[in-house]
Each structure stands twice: as structure tokens, then as C-alpha cells.
């Protein structure tokens, strides 16, 4: 570690991994409820498990992004972090607030939680992904502002690289667009219209800047390729991201009451959204092929290449699959959406966070790379989780195609619940594959405890 203050990244990474485990356990609960409908009912109704699953996902990715920034920005700026104390304080605030929110979901009925936490003052709850109580949302904003202040001050007093600038832009964008979660008009159409300014403009906008910056940083470190080359790629990739992705928001405006020209804008621009993801893949492989050194951390390179490929598959290919309006007319809100959501989130954001953890964590623990055995375990976990995710996606896609066929693209549509029973086989297969994913995750956690020879960082 080049700067003492980079050490604050460590608790962030540990918390991220812990919450990831929780996310997957709740995913498996829901997977079972899909086929055994009354499993854990009424103790944990499906909607509660779902909130826990998706909110844990978002929170642990945020922990990962913040940890990454605390690790990267001092090194890029060639100066100590502005305030390590503030970073640690924010860590505990975020962790406690997050934990209390999850306990709230599980312990009291949602309506009671809403009443207890001031939702009547400013109703923001009860919308997908934005289920958090008002006080949690305010807490997120405070933590984000303190974090951005800390990171921005660090950057201002040190060297300004393209990578840290792009990272910061992404993180500021993340915070700014989150503010739309406080806007909840009683007109459902407006509500939905601006809801996507959080959700879409995050994952297909500003988060991609963060993704690009993290990937570029790790690639510079493990390949030793010239910074000028890598930063040029970074700019082109994120340029394409925003050129296609901002108007691409239109692919969510086809059927929610917005004017019909969105079918054209949304289809054309979002059809181009795979381009930056494809470039990301080419970028990662290109840089690794042109490497100027053999970094001892082989696992980190594997995660980085995996990010390139899987984000292209999940976001690019599976996104394109259902993004054109005439296709989306049939697939909208079906298991196809779930298939895409899983592979895209995993391929892009889960993998990039695991990439930076894989690179930085050994160094934070005082070694250049993990012992051979630890790296082998990490690579096993990569393959187990990634192959499992590919199959989860394929099974959900199969379920989705049948669902569309039986319920929508037919003259004799069957009711929703009748269709669900007919496609239960694929939900069973998804659940078993989910167990394989869990095994991969357990191997991942165990890899941190592998013993063996290491070189000092």
C-alpha cells in the first residue's frame, strides 16, 4: 500500500462481501417461494424477501464503490486521503443504517415501518428498489455527501488523472440522480417517468463511468500498459455510454403512458447501448494481451476479463434481446426481464467490485498477491459463480419465452398463475443452479483464509 489512508477501504470491502452473502441467501428463499408458494409464509412474504435481496445488492455494491474510491483516489492523486476518520465514521453510519433498515423490513409489517419512519411527511416508499424508509434515504444522502466531500478534497489537493476524474463524475452523478427518489407525485405516469431517472440513469449511465474507471485502474496496475492508452479508451467508452444511454432511457417509456415517439427514440438509442459494453470487452483483452509485466495476482486479471465478457453478455446481448419496442411489447415485465437483470448486474457491477477487491485486498493485507492456493480458490469461485449465473439466465430466459408464448403472443392466452405452474420446471432448475452459485460464493469467502507463501507488497 502506497498511502496509509488507503487502509480505510478494507472495512468497506469486508462489509460488501458479508452483505453479498446475505443477498444470495434471500435470493434462494425467493427462488424456493417461486415453486413452493407458501414457503416461509407468512413469516417472510415474497415481497419482503425481494426487498432484502435487491436492497442488499445495491447497498453492498455501494460499499464496494466507496471502498474502491478510498483505495484508488489517494493512489491516483498521490496524496493521503483528506480525512480517514470521516471515512471510518461514514462506514459505521452506513453499516448501522443499512442493518437497521433490513431488520425493519423483516421485523415489522411494511405499512407499520412506513408509519414509524415518517413516510407520511414525504411519501417515497413502496416503489421497486426505492423501498427504503425516508430516514434511510436521507441517511444515504448524508453518507454520500460526506464521502464525496472527502474524495473530492483529496483529488483537489493532489494529481488529477482522467481515471479519478471519471470515477468522481460517476459518483457525483450517482448521488445527484438518487435525489429523484424523493420525488413521488401521485400521478403514476410521472412517478414512473422519473423513477427511471434513478434506476436507468444509474445502471446505464453514471454507474458505467464508475465501472470504466475501476476497470481502467486495475488494468493499468496488472498489465503495466501506458496510462495514455488506457485513459483514451476510457474516455471513448464512457462517451459512447452517455451518447447512447441517456436517450436510451426511452426503452422504459414505451408502455407507461408516455408519448409514442419514445418507441423510436428508445429503440434506436438503446439498440446502440451494447457498443460501449463491447468496447469494454475488447479493451480488457487488448490491454491484457499487450501487458508489459507479469503481475503475480492472476486472479485479479481473471476477474477483470470476466467483467468485460459478462457485462457485454448480460447488459449488451441480453439487453438488446428485449429492447426494441415490438419485442418489448411481448416481453415487458416477464421472466426475460429478470434474466437480463440478473446477468447484467452480475456481469457488470458484481464482477467489477470483485475485481477491485481481488486486486486491492491482498495489498491492504500487506502482500503483493494472495498465496497460490488462495488464488486458485478465487478462480474456482469465479468459474462456479459465473457459470451458475449463465445457467440461471438461460433457465429464466426459457421460462420467459414460454411465458410470453402461453400468456401473451397467442389468441388463447392462459391466466398468469396457470402459466407459472406450467413453467415450474425452469424455476426448479434456477433454484438448483442458485445453490451452485452459493457454493461458489462460499469458496470465494474461504479463499481469504488460504495460507501459504506470499511476497510483501
Amino acid at each position: 500500500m502506497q498511502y496509509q489512508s488507503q487502509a480505510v477501504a478494507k472495512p468497506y470491502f469486508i462489509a460488501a462481501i458479508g452483505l453479498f452473502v446475505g443477498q444470495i441467501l434471500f435470493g434462494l428463499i425467493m427462488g424456493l417461494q417461486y415453486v413452493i408458494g407458501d414457503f416461509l409464509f407468512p413469516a417472510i412474504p415474497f415481497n419482503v424477501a425481494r426487498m432484502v435481496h435487491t436492497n442488499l445488492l445495491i447497498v453492498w455494491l455501494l460499499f464496494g464503490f466507496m471502498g474502491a474510491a478510498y483505495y484508488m483516489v489517494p493512489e491516483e492523486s498521490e496524496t493521503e486521503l483528506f480525512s480517514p476518520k470521516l471515512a471510518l465514521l461514514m462506514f459505521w453510519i452506513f453499516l448501522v443504517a443499512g442493518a437497521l433498515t433490513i431488520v425493519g423490513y423483516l421485523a415489522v409489517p411494511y405499512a407499520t415501518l412506513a408509519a414509524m419512519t415518517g413516510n407520511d411527511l414525504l411519501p417515497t416508499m413502496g416503489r421497486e428498489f426505492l423501498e427504503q424508509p425516508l430516514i434511510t434515504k436521507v441517511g444515504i444522502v448524508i453518507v454520500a455527501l460526506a464521502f464525496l466531500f472527502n474524495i473530492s478534497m483529496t483529488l483537489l489537493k493532489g494529481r488529477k488523472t482522467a481515471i479519478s476524474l471519471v470515477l468522481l463524475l460517476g459518483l457525483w452523478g450517482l448521488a445527484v440522480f438518487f435525489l429523484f427518489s424523493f420525488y413521488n407525485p401521485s400521478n403514476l405516469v410521472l412517478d414512473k417517468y422519473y423513477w427511471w431517472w434513478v434506476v436507468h440513469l444509474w445502471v446505464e449511465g453514471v454507474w458505467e463511468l464508475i465501472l470504466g474507471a475501476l476497470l481502467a485502474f486495475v488494468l493499468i496496475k496488472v498489465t503495466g500498459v501506458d496510462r495514455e492508452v488506457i485513459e483514451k479508451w476510457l474516455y471513448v467508452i464512457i462517451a459512447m455510454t452517455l451518447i447512447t444511454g441517456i436517450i436510451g432511457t426511452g426503452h422504459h417509456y414505451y408502455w407507461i403512458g408516455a408519448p409514442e415517439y419514445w418507441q423510436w427514440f428508445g429503440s434506436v438509442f438503446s439498440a446502440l447501448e451494447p457498443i460501449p459494453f463491447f468496447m469494454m470487452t475488447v479493451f480488457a483483452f487488448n490491454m491484457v494481451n499487450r501487458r508489459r509485466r507479469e503481475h503475480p495476482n492472476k486472479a485479479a486479471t481473471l476477474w477483470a476479463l470476466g467483467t468485460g465478457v459478462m457485462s457485454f453478455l448480460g447488459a449488451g446481448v441480453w439487453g438488446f434481446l428485449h429492447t426494441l419496442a415490438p419485442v418489448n411489447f411481448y416481453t415487458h415485465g416477464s421472466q426475460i426481464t429478470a434474466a437480463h437483470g440478473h446477468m447484467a448486474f452480475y456481469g457488470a457491477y458484481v464482477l467489477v467490485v470483485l475485481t477491485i477487491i481481488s486486486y486491492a485486498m491482498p495489498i491492504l493485507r500487506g502482500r503483493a498477491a494472495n498465496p497460490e492456493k488462495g488464488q486458485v480458490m478465487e478462480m474456482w469461485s469465479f468459474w462456479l459463480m459465473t457459470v451458475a449465473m449463465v445457467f440461471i439466465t438461460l433457465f429464466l430466459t426459457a421460462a420467459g419465452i414460454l411465458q410470453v408464448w402461453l400468456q401473451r403472443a397467442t389468441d388463447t392466452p392462459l391466466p398468469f398463475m396457470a402459466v407459472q405452474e406450467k413453467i415450474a420446471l425452469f424455476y426448479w432448475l434456477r433454484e438448483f443452479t442458485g445453490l451452485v452459485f452459493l457454493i461458489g460464493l462460499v469458496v470465494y469467502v474461504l479463499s481469504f483464509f488460504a495460507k501459504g507463501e506470499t511476497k510483501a507488497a
Partner: protein
Amino acid sequence: MSETFTKSMARNMFYGGATFFFLLFLALTFDTQGALPKRDHRENITPEVVRGKHLWETRNCIGCHTLLGEGAYFAPELGNVYPRRGPEFIKAWIKAQPTHTPGRRQMPQFNFTEEQLNDLVAFLKWTSEINTSNWPPNIEG
């Protein structure tokens, strides 16, 4: 990437492209705002509809159901449940939950008052009248 295409050109492409398309997005949003009243029939958003939406949110119905295709995929689409089932069925259904049918997906009991049920139905009725460009493809949602 070629040598003649420099990093500063790439950077300008990023800032220029992002700014241009963000402004275009704002312009389209402005136009959409103007066109929406004809499509969402906001004149029909009564106090019942407003309260109904609030109940919809504070009970997290979206955690199991889709509404106009957005939400969870565990339970039926409700954007068109009003024309599919009618007001009386909806109220009776909600009151009768859970079914306790072994192995079948369950919906919780929310203990709504009669007035709250009317509010929810008003919200679902208004929602079903939004001009969604003919989505969903058929009555099953």
C-alpha cells in the same frame, strides 16, 4: 486505437456528447410533460385515487405484482386487473387472502377497511385508463 485520435479528442467527445444528449433528453422530457395530460387523464385523479396509490405503496404490492409491466414477476399484472376482474371481485379477493392453498403462492391479509378497499379500486381503475399504447397484449396481462 489510432495515434491520430488523441486522448484530448476522446475527452472532448465525452464532454460534448454527454452535454448534447443530456440537453436533448431534457427537451424531450419537456415535450413529454406537455403531451402527458391527454394520455394520463389526470383530471380523473380524485382524492380516492391519491389515497389508493398511497395504500398501494405502503403495502408494497409492487414487491409481488407488476403494474404496467414494472415491479415483481411473482404475481399477476394489475395494470389491467380492473377490466379483467371488476371492482367487486378485486375487493372480495383482497379480503379473502391468504388462500392457504398448500404449495400455492400466497398473498398476505392487509386488514383494509371498506373505504380503503374503495380507494385501492379507484387507483386501479384510473391506472387501467392510462393510454399505454395498447399494452398489455391481452386481458391476461
